[in-house]
């Protein structure tokens, strides 16, 4: 028997409003039938050592879940090219850290349509530590990074998915300055806190993350502790990667954090998403 069970639904007629008022179509997951649009999909979590079962409720044989980084066995890996499509996935979560799930059928389009969400594995005791015996934190945040190319929603002309020209640049599904007022994104803390920030790159362009001042340390990546913590001035990450940061707010103030998304050939900034870290 599974220690945790989740049931997810797919909504195929939803959209999210961008800062300029344009609605962009998404196919988001939700944890109840008919729930108001939640994008990205709900945060799934389990503890180290737990077996988890996730059921895809209204799949219609078109989609899969891939639990990225969990290293599930082939029947539960969600890859139509290696195993027939199933609706129920069972796997063991044996390393605390940051993961994500996404559809792995025609992934180039389905991931772009927003079929993804964050997955977090907590220590065995569920405590506020990055991993069992690892560093403690006061409060966790997840930033899921991605972009939208609204032209990929058009059927005429039919898009060529080799050509990605995003026009919206997101943190947790919001673009422009909107992430500044999003309670799940803008970091609010007190000097002396330790914030765990889980970064997940669900987009297609290389992203550069800068926090605007508060000291931080990169302690883990892809669900594993780093051999030694790092403190680069700018953290660069690519599609599919995750990084866990401990932020040590020390001086009260409001800091502008930003994610710059770079062109994959020229490395020029194609777009930026902004949020804030407020230290009381």
């Amino acid at each position, binding site marked *: 028997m599974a220690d945790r069970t989740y049931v997810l639904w797919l909504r195929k007629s939803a959209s999210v409003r961008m800062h300029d008022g344009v609605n962009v179509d998404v196919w988001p997951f939700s944890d109840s039938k008919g729930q108001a649009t939640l994008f990205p999909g709900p945060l799934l979590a389990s503890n180290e050592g737990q077996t988890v079962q996730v059921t895809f409720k209204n799949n219609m044989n078109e989609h899969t879940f891939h639990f*990225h980084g969990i290293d599930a066995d082939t029947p539960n890996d969600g890859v139509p090219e*290696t195993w027939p499509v199933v609706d129920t996935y069972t796997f063991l979560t044996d390393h605390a850290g940051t993961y994500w799930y996404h559809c792995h059928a025609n*992934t180039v389009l389905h*991931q772009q349509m927003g079929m993804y969400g964050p997955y977090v594995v907590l220590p065995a005791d569920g405590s506020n530590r990055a991993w069992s015996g690892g560093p403690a934190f006061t409060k966790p945040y997840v930033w899921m990074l991605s972009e939208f190319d609204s032209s990929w929603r058009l059927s005429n002309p039919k898009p*060529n*998915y*080799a050509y990605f020209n995003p026009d919206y640049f997101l943190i947790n599904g919001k673009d422009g300055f909107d992430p500044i007022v999003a309670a799940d994104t803008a970091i609010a803390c007190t000097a002396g806190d330790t914030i765990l920030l889980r970064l997940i790159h669900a987009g297609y362009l290389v992203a550069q993350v800068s926090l605007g001042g508060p000291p931080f340390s990169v302690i883990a990546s892809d669900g*594993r502790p780093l051999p030694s913590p790092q403190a680069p001035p700018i953290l660069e990450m690519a599609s599919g990667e995750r990084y866990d940061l401990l932020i040590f707010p020390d001086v009260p103030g409001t800091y502008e954090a930003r994610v710059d998304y770079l062109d994959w*050939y*020229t490395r020029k900034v194609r777009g930026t998403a902004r949020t804030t870290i407020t230290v009381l």
Partner: protein
Amino acid sequence: MRRIDRRAFLKACAVGSGAVAVTASGLLTLESFRAEGARRVGGGPMPRSYSLRAREGSISTVDGKTLYARGFADEVGAMSIPGPALWAREGEWVTITLTNDAPEEHGIAIEGVAVGPPVRPGGSAEIAFQAPHPGTYIYHDPAESPLNRALGMYGAFVVVPLDTPNRVWSGGPAFARQYLQVVSELDESWNAAASLKAPIDTGTYRPNYFFLNGRGFPDSDVDPNAHIRGSVGETILIRWVNAGLVPHSLHTHGYHFLVVQQDGRPEAGFREKDNIPVYPGRTMDVILDFDQAGLYPMHDHILMANTGNGVYPKGIMGMFEVV
């Protein structure tokens, strides 16, 4: 070592394995190399020699197109993309003779190791150097950069330890077998323009075909370096080479891997990852333990590169088949 050129390998094996005094790695002039050889008469090592030819040819796409391309061929063979895999042991003398069979000027450079002179059509030139630290390197044509590389003029140069071929470097991580995975891509419009000798604006690059060892999936699946077979309990080394002009963010299903080396330099600490970008012109050596059986893809998570001209999953995707 499946991709090694057989004749070159046999020739190299015949050269002997006398210990080589390792001085500073890097480019030596041919004269200094010959002087070094002369000093070693009577027991000194002979060079490991390769001959490559710069040629025009074509590359096949996963959807059946044949596109004009430029590439490297071995001494007698047809052009291949990537070019022939070149191998040497640490500290060995290596010579590469490049003969230019193509109508434009070409050359050869090994990133961080040696740069040869431009070679005019019909001409040839030789570079000589000592094999650097064990690891994975890229050779390519630096002429008309980055055009010739984008058209297919690249390959891998691998240096193995002198006495411990199943370690990444002497005293480094051990493995049962090793695999070479060269990822790249092309912008079809560059190939079309190059075939017509038309001007190309290399400030704009819109790649639409993506390759693992020169093929898109599933064409690549016949390549034993792309579809890797093994058994539970084995440890393998994968040498990732990005010969293209854009990053490729490689993700393994089923397993995490250890990043042990980049560009021929050992990492200070080995990161355990399931997804990492390999940047253009860079290499990465990763160690992977087969700790479960199954069939798992390895693919580029920059998903445009998981397509062939926009069709999924016809781009950069390999497989692990583990029993």
